[in-house]
């Protein structure tokens, strides 16, 4: 499990998850992600799952937890590139509407941000 976290101007965080996200992996990365997110005043978190090969319900806990802690009530959570199986897991969990069928760049544009240093 590795991940990459970047900030876009105007308080948008992008979290690119990699490898396998299970209970074991969430224990390893939750703290790190939370600490990093404290650095910025957020109005949106984009979860990019393009390079995530596996996710179980631990991923739901991770995303819901970060929504609760960091995204203000008028803010956004966006989930990009889930696999078919992950999409089902999001639907069952009531997160289906957060899945956007688009790219990272288009999401940033739609949210009105500018991606730093890219």
């Amino acid at each position, binding site marked *: 499990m590795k991940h990459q976290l970047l900030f876009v101007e105007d308080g948008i965080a992008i979290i690119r998850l990699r490898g396998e996200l299970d209970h074991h992996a969430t224990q390893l990365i939750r703290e790190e992600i939370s600490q990093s997110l404290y650095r910025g005043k957020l109005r949106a978190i984009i979860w990019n799952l393009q390079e995530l090969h596996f996710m*179980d319900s631990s991923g739901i806990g991770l995303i819901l937890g970060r929504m609760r802690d960091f995204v203000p009530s008028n803010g956004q959570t966006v989930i990009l590139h889930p696999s078919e199986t992950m999409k089902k897991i999001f639907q069952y969990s009531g997160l289906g509407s957060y899945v956007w069928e688009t790219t990272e760049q288009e999401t940033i544009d739609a949210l009105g941000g500018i991606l730093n240093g890219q």
Partner: protein
Amino acid sequence: MDNEMTLSFIAISENEGLARMVMTSFIASLDPTIDELAEFKTIVSEAVTNAIIHGYEEDAQGIVTIRAKRDGRKITMTISDEGRGISDLEQAMEPLFTTKPERERSGMGFTIMESFSDHLSVWSEPQKGTAITFSKDFSPIHSKITMGER
């Protein structure tokens, strides 16, 4: 019965990945589709994680056991622990119900296991343990779209 195996390991979270790998190898000869494999691994992961964290509180001592059989293109598995057990099974199986919200469990494990398997049954008794049995049928190879050489 075409193949049969049993795997057991101690209750540490590292073994969630081990269990998925082992079960992936066990069904490899069925040549599952990407989605079938992903759903199957998710069921295994949910059940094994529950045994480790709810059954044993990750005590590195309790033993989680997976028994699996392959008959044709059907896989039947039982994941069991001898841990704390579940007192109210109906409530436990409700979507979003969890006894570990502080650990950010989502309460979706049972819902996902039920949705991704063809048949699921749960036995549990407080202080005795829990056993989840499920089966999953894999689609015939000839009905799959295959690309390139097999």
